[in-house]
Every structure is written in C-alpha cells, then in structure tokens.
C-alpha cells in the first residue's frame, strides 16, 4: 500500500473514531466555550475591555484546550495497536502524517467554532478583511499544534503519565504558533504587515513536519 493510501486510511479511521466518541466537539469544545464566558462574567460591564481582550482570550484558550485535542490520539494509542501497524508494514511517517491530517481537521473545526463563539460573546472590533487572516492563522496554528501533539505523543509512548508529560513538551514549543497567530490579527488591526507572523507559523509548521516525518521511524523503534 502506498504512503498516501496508508496516510488516508489512518486519518479516515481516526475521524470515524472521533465521530463516535465526540471527544473534541462534544466534550472539549463546550468546556472551552464555557471558559470563554468566564472572563466577561469576571469583568462585569466593562464592555470596552471585554471587546479588547476577546482575541487574546481566544488564542489563550485555543492553546490550552487545543492541547487536549492534539493529545487525544496518543491517549488512546496502545502498544498492541502500534505493534499491529508495524507488522502490517505501515510506514511510521505515514502514521504521523495521517494522525496530523485527522487531528488538524478536528483542531480547525474546534478553533473555528471557538472563534465564532468569541465574536458573539466578546463583540471585538475586528479590522476589515479579518476573516482571511483569521482563517490562515487558524489553519497554520491547527497544523502546528497537531504536529506538536502527535510528536509529543510519539516521544512519550509507553511512559507512565504520558499525557501530562506530552503537555509539558507541547506547551512551550507551541509559543511561536501562539505568537504568530495572535500577532497576525494584531498587525492587521494596526495596519502593519502580517507576513512576518505568517512566515513564523509557516516555518514552525514546516520544521515540525520535517522533524515528525524524519523522526517517526527512530521514535517508533526507540519507544517499544
């Protein structure tokens, strides 16, 4: 079976499992929306402040709850399943890309709904033409965070407290993504160029993709 067929099969099955479990859209997302509502409640009727902090709160919650979305696959990954894939001849790189693909789709759906909820709750003053920038930032952020989560899941495979350890890896390494995504929207508001921030996210995504694909086999062999 070709690399891409393996990749698509891994992604297809993961999305089917998610459709049945609903971890992302039925559990993580509602909690994230509730967390969005906590900030305005604590600030009272200061509508100007609420409006100003909306995008920042969105990205902060995006990283916090997004980590749970990014790490959901590794939480369900078992040694038996890893062995099965290896004995079927699945390329570890295809496994990595497949999981990033399905995780990225879920992350994007999660962030888009969370952004819409933020706009409705906070009513931020968004610059004209913000949608393409938000969408681009969200796509690049989703890819990068999913790559990080998948990579961290592979590094911590077989360890106790795997999810907690993986979070410790993801959180600091996701900083370039958070900075790039939040600053691109900020730059649009200021009327300055968004290119440096887009390039920062793109470079992070590409670096993680190269590391993830290149390290997939050595990591799989080392973590048995």
């Amino acid at each position, binding site marked *: *079976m070709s690399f891409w067929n*393996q990749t698509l*099969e891994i992604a297809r*099955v993961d999305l089917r499992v998610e459709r049945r479990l609903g971890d992302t859209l039925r559990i993580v997302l509602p909690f994230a929306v509730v967390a969005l509502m906590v900030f305005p409640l604590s600030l009272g009727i200061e509508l100007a402040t609420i409006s100003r902090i909306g995008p920042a709160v969105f990205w902060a919650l995006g990283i916090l709850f997004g980590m749970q979305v990014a790490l959901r696959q590794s939480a369900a990954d078992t040694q*038996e*399943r890893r062995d099965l894939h290896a*004995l079927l*001849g699945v390329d570890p790189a295809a496994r990595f890309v497949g999981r990033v693909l399905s995780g990225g789709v879920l992350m994007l759906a999660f962030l888009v709904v969370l952004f819409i909820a933020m706009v409705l709750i906070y009513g931020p003053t968004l610059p004209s033409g913000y949608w393409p920038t938000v969408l681009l930032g969200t796509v690049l952020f989703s890819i990068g965070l999913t790559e990080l989560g998948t990579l961290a899941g592979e590094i911590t495979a077989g360890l106790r407290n795997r999810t907690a350890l993986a979070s410790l890896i993801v959180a600091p390494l996701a900083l370039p993504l958070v900075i790039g995504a939040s600053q691109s929207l900020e730059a649009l508001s200021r009327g300055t160029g968004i290119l440096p921030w887009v390039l920062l996210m793109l470079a992070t995504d590409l670096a993680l993709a190269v590391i993830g694909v290149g390290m997939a086999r050595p990591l799989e062999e080392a973590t048995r």
Partner: protein
Amino acid sequence: MDLLVHLENAGVSLGGKPILRHVDFDLQPGQVAGVTGPNGSGKTTLIRMLTTLLRVSEGAGSILGADVNSDQVFAVRPSIGMIGHNPALIDELTLRENLVHVVRLAGLAEERVDPVLEVVGLDEASDRRADASSFGMRRRIEVAHLLLTRPRLLLLDEATSGLDNSARELIDALMDRTIGDGGGVVMVSHDHQRLDESCDEVMALSSGRLERAR
C-alpha cells in the same frame, strides 16, 4: 533449505536489565516450535524479539532472511503474524470495520473481508462494536486478519487461553495453513498437553535462557 529463524547467542535487555540471554534458536519451514516456562521467564519477550519489534541487544541471526541487527527487518515485518495477550482492536470500530482497516493497510482487496468473517463465524456479529464484543470474538477477528495476510512466520503467545473449542480449532486451522504455505509457527503456552500435541519440538525458557525440553 533456508531457515525461517536463526538466532545465535541472542539476547534482549530492557532498561539495562537482561531479559533473554544466550538464545540459540532455529526454525525450519513447516516446523512448529513450542515454548513453555514459568511466568516472568521471558516468553513474551522472546515472541516480541521474533516479531523484530523488540531488537536484539546482543548476538546475531536472521528472521525470514533479514539480519536481526540491521534495518532489513522492516521489510519482513508484514510477513510476520502475531497473536498476543490482548487483541489489537480499535474499540470504537465494529468487528468488520477493524478487519477492513487491517485489510486496507495491508493493501488487500476489501471484497475478501466478508468471506473470511464467515469462516471465523462472525458474519452475523460483524456489526457489533469491538468494545461490546467478547474476548473470543475479538480473538476471532485477529485470526481472520492472519488468514487474510498469510504470514510466513506465525507467533502465538498464549493465543488459545480463554477460548472455546471452536475458536481453538480456528487457531489450529491457521497454524495448518501457515505450515501448508511453507511457513513456521512458534507457540508459547503453559498447556503442556497442547504443546506436545501440536509441536515438533518444545523448548523451556527459564531465567531468560532457552533450552530444549523435548
């Protein structure tokens, strides 16, 4: 005739602790080898070493012609089949979907799934989710998978534990098919009677060392 497995003085260490030591083991095409031994003696480690998923820490040898100390083992893994302690199924998928997943990853035709489900007696229960299925049913899906992928080296790690007679017969049929195809079988079990009946030779594993029992 080329040996399916040839190990010389092979050993495996985990976390710096030796689990298997000085293992000399040959398996010829058409041969069924049995391995027995007390709990913790290294039987599962031996099976995992034979899958090549656990790499040898010392010694030399080959499995299906691939040098165990080289990356050649990646290429022969699809010709190795294992039934371990826990069936490797995805709980949220149905039994049929689990088999389809395996068939797709193995690059086989999906049309072969339904006939083999009938062979293993799961044609009517195939839409049941794996996490709502009995251990025996899950095991039958693993047998169905191996009937489809036809491994040359079949490794059974207490594969018949907890199974009824009809499921045991399926595993026997799988062994017969593997032998008939010119492959070999290594069977780990505590059931001495079964080992005596099914195996050409039986080895005993004790404190990480493998010795001929009969």
